[in-house]
């Protein structure tokens, strides 16, 4: 019997030939990550249980600051200091301070992610790192304390759902529209406790950035892990970043899947998730004309250079509509640098956008741009549950192209028009 990607990764970590769904196993953790929020709780809990005891391996720990950066108030400032002090004391080199950007993206760029790694983080969108062939999963505070102290964590081997994408992606439809369409069909609980492999002809040429968009939203299907079987370019990217050989992990031909979905994405219209759930997805054309107050382009789902480039094409020589606030947010310092070097900032500023420092921005009621009750936001992020961006605000989730076009028109608009 063959294995799926996650079964192979877990088997390798545990030294077993074969693992099967529902087995409970202890695995070696390659990287255990905290963020500036929630992270201080990990440190306090670690010190409560282990005092000054040295962590299991400081090189297998990373701390990313991405939510309330730079510190928005005294409480946050104190929390960030807890992280810095702990990193100093425990000789943790991988602390990425304010200005670095969204955690998982920073880890990828800084060469901390290898094909086949097992990564745990206090971040529910950790699983997007499956775009780089690692089993990355969001876990709680106590899990990280355990991984830091002992280097191990328990997992139940999940069953795998296979999602096959056939056909061709035709602009202005993008990877975001595809994953929204998939989410509509799989549903918010459709992948609960499961690993998800997204594959098929339509994914084969997709870039890292498009794969990030796909894998990031497996979180909204309640998935435990997400994968896109890697191509050579992804492996080359990892090799360049990590200075290590990378061996891609692929499912066996006869791997066992619990469910399989097939989608033909040729001719798919741009999609939008309407309030209050990420699977409440409709074609953008159905809600065209809805007035918007704010537009957010960024987040771990759509803050890559390619996303910003597409947005710049739409904003070029255009202005954001009167009364609309546009926030454009590069996911990392490296993305911001590329956007600056290639003239994108000029276009954003001339269009009237606000461009904050690389971070999660207003996601999870973080920084910059919370809504007042009754206001409407079009966001390229991944969640629109009630209260997500301020109580009473209404959030629509869409692609960068739909978001940028809507910011210029002042109302939800199908991209690609005249």
């Amino acid at each position, binding site marked *: 019997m063959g294995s799926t990607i996650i079964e192979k990764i877990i088997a390798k970590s545990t030294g077993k030939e074969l693992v099967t769904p529902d087995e409970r196993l202890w695995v070696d953790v390659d990287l255990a990550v905290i963020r500036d929020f929630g992270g201080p*709780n990990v440190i*306090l809990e670690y010190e409560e249980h282990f005092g000054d005891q040295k962590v299991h391996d400081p090189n297998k720990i990373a701390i990313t600051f991405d939510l309330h950066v730079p510190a928005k*108030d005294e409480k946050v400032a104190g929390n960030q200091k807890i992280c810095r002090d702990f990193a100093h004391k425990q000789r943790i080199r991988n602390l990425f301070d304010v200005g670095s950007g969204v955690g998982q993206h920073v880890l990828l760029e800084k060469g901390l992610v290898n094909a086949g790694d097992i990564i745990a983080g206090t971040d529910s969108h950790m699983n997007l790192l499956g775009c780089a062939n690692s089993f990355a999963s969001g876990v709680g*505070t*106590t899990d990280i304390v355990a991984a830091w102290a002992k280097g191990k964590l328990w997992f139940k081997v999940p069953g795998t759902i296979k999602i096959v994408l056939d056909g061709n992606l035709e602009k202005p439809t993008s990877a975001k529209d595809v994953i929204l369409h998939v989410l509509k069909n799989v549903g918010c609980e459709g992948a609960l406790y499961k690993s998800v492999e997204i594959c098929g002809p339509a994914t084969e040429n997709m870039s890292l950035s498009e794969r990030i968009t796909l894998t990031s939203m497996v979180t909204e299907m309640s998935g435990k892990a997400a994968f896109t079987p890697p191509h050579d370019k992804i492996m080359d990217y990892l090799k360049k970043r990590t200075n290590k050989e990378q061996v891609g992990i692929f499912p066996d031909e006869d791997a066992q899947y619990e469910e399989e979905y097939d989608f033909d994405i040729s001719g798919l219209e741009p999609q939008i998730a309407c309030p209050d759930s990420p699977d409440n997805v409709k074609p953008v054309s159905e809600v065209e004309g809805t007035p918007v107050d704010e537009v957010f382009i960024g987040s771990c789902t759509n803050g890559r250079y390619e996303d910003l480039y597409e947005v710049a094409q739409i904003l070029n020589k255009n202005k954001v509509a009167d009364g609309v606030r546009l926030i454009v947010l590069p996911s990392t310092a490296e993305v911001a640098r590329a956007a600056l070097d290639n003239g994108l900032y000029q276009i954003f500023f001339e269009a009237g956008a606000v461009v904050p420092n690389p971070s999660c921005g207003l996601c*999870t009621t973080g920084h910059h741009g919370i809504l007042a009750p009754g206001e409407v936001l079009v966001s390229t992020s991944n969640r629109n549950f009630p*209260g997500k961006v301020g109580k009473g605000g209404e959030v629509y989730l869409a692609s960068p192209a739909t978001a940028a076009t809507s910011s210029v028109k002042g109302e939800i608009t199908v991209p690609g028009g005249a």
Partner: protein
Amino acid sequence: MKGKAWVIGDNIDTDQIYPGKYLPLTDVKEMAKHALEGIDRLEDFSELVAQGDFVVAGVNFGCGSSREHAAVCLREVGVAMVIAESFARIYYRNTVNIGYPVLESKDITQKVQDGDVLETDASNGIIKNERTGETIQALPLSGLEREISDAGGLLQYMKKTTE
């Protein structure tokens, strides 16, 4: 365990259980004050709840972020146990890791109404509803999860097994 049921709906996410704006809090007593504050009718839940009450929820309870606060705040405010039709993955994991047992029971929101008095046994998963007289068999923890939870949580379990 005996207490009153607070029945809430499907897909209650962590922002409703513990709003994101309180994430910077690190004191569990302070966290408790904001339990379920994101659900409109339960804004004052921490003042209304009695020690030993139950939260009864629909499917996918605790979806959204990975914040462990969302499990801790309910324990600290005095909720004896959460009984849900299903739990979001990380939420479920967090309850095991902090040794705060939960029960899974299909259709529970149809069998229990707000204010019903329940008697439950976490070890065998039996729930008795006083109003209807019905006995409901829920799914209790088993295997490794059970061992971790019974040890008082993941860290206690690891200390016990590795030392």
